[in-house]
């Protein structure tokens, strides 16, 4: 494991793990029995890991969500699907490598999957534009989702982006319109849509494929209106206060369940998804199948009505005015 990718708050744990490795090596070389000692240390490491991970600060969760070794959309697709064929291009301008998609099968069930794609090292990340999509990425995703509707396949959208790309070309080709159009169209697609934040849920760039019947987040991910760094820079003119902003923005999966923004949290293996790809993919797959089965039982009208109401009811308005709100909602219905 590359040393420089270690998370700062895991330092005591990593030290302990190194010690275990050392001892194991020593034991093998010298042929001395240290099993008891090693076992003791391993128990301690497990307990320490549990401790660290049960009390993670939002800022620390953000660090895990951004970890370069985290499984990407492609990793999950490879682990979840029996078969998958990537499909390319928006039919208008180009093929965005930062937002990919295609068709495949999960346990013999045909699905369409779209998702932001990050790279793992510099070269790959440049190709993938660090998971920051251009308008053609969003338009490709919409094309594939419409195709899914035509062939009656459920849609899975895997979100993992710091945000939509802020660049000249992106603006020229209508980044804002592309995202807006996707949200609008996704509310009307007549097949089940499941959205899962698998890493970073960066603002509008995430929401551009983020409207669905179910919205889930993996345990150590974040979903935010803006990056805590940007928030701190704007509000306090100090990007070092990003830790404070991360807390204030309520961007963790737990916070967002409480606020009614997402439906549920999908657990990750101890130490995060990057510690065990297979286990993480299994947990995701299990949830996806379970939810798709449930959603496929609904009539289309009911599916769409529920999806509409899910987003229609989001938001908080001052209590005094509440009575009035209920009234007018009825009036509008």
């Amino acid at each position, binding site marked *: 494991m590359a040393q420089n990718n270690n998370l700062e708050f895991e330092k005591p744990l990593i030290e302990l793990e190194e010690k275990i490795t050392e001892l194991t090596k020593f034991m093998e070389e010298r042929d001395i029995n240290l099993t008891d000692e090693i076992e003791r240390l391993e128990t301690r490491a497990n307990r320490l890991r549990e401790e660290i991970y049960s009390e993670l600060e939002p800022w620390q969760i953000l660090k895990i969500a951004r970890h370069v070794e985290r499984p990407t959309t492609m990793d999950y697709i490879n682990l979840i699907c029996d078969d998958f064929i990537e499909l390319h291009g928006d039919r208008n301008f180009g093929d965005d490598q930062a937002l990919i998609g295609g068709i495949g099968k999960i346990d013999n069930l045909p699905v369409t999957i779209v998702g932001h794609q990050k790279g793992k090292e510099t070269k790959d990340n440049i190709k993938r534009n660090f998971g920051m999509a251009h308008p053609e990425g969003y338009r490709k995703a919409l094309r594939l989702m419409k195709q899914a509707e035509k062939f009656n396949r459920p849609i899975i959208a895997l979100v993992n982006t710091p945000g939509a790309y802020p660049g000249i070309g992106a603006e020229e080709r209508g980044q*804002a319109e592309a995202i807006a159009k996707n949200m609008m169209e996704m509310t009307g697609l007549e097949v089940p849509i499941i959205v899962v934040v698998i890493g970073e849920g960066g603002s509008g760039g995430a929401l551009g494929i983020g409207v669905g019947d179910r919205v889930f987040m993996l345990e150590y991910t974040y979903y935010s209106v803006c990056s805590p760094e940007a928030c701190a820079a704007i509000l306090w003119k100090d990007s070092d206060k990003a830790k404070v902003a991360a807390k204030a923005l309520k961007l963790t999966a737990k916070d967002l369940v409480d606020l009614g923004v997402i439906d549920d949290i999908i657990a990750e293996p101890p130490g995060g998804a990057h510690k065990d790809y297979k286990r993480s993919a299994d947990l995701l797959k299990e949830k996806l199948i379970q939810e798709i089965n449930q959603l496929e039982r609904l009539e289309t009208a009911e599916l769409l009505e529920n999806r509409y109401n899910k987003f229609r009811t989001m938001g908080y308005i001052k209590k005094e005015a509440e009575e009035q709100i209920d009234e007018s909602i009825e009036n509008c219905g």
Partner: protein
Amino acid sequence: MLKDLFGGKSKYVTVERKKRSEEKGNEHKEDSDKKEMPDDLWTKCKSCKQIIFNKKLAKSLKICPECGSYFRLTAAERLSLLVDDEKFEEYDADLQAENPLDFPDYEQKIDKYQEQTGLKEAVITGIGEMNGWQVSLAVIDSRFLMGSMNSVVGEKVTRAIERALEKELPLVIVSGGGGGARMYEGMLSLMQMAKTSAALKRLDQAGGLFISVLTDPTYGGISASFASLGDVNLAEPQAKIGFAGPRVIKQTINRDLPEGFQTAEFLLEHGMIDKVVERADLKDVIARIIDIHKLRGGENNGTE
């Protein structure tokens, strides 16, 4: 001031100032008007630096008579420009923000902007008449926390959309929000983008007409939701419109931005809006668009 500005009696303008008086009357109009422009004799043009007398500026609809640059309008000023005399009924004026995240200093911010603008939130919505056509309207006021969208703005805009749907009215939304989705309400603000877009989808499916008017500035969560989704997208000359702010783009790509980048004219050139319309012509152009649609749709609307 409004009366002076655009020569219309602006009944609805008083609605936003209700909180200052127990009665819904006009008694406090003079006082609060003064607050809006502390130095009420002249204004300095940000573009050409010329000092312009406010009376002259008002006569030119807040467009610099010297250099032609557009000043931003408040929501009330915009309404008085778009709506027939006194033909506006405001809805949901009392809806106010909560602080669902317990975000530091948010309440104080809201109080401050309510005080400064006389508005409860960053959008005014209602039903008005434009050249005799009944229209469901929403106008964002960029003075209120940069016209950013929170739960209340999202709710009010969504209700304006639903009102258009229910009453079979054309929908006109005038966007002017530089703040995008409001940070202080975190993801709840972001979700208003989905909420408003979902409502627009329903209007769209029902064959409703939505005219989106983009004014300076329209960015982020506002441009990336309802503002971009009009059947017809209009924009005022020179208006700055985009997804990401110019500073962020400059930092990201590490070079200077081209001349005229993210202006209404730039968007027109790149096919993102249908027409750039001068401020003075806006009302007529909107009414003409509605007229053309009504001729086809044959719905029961127009001058009653």
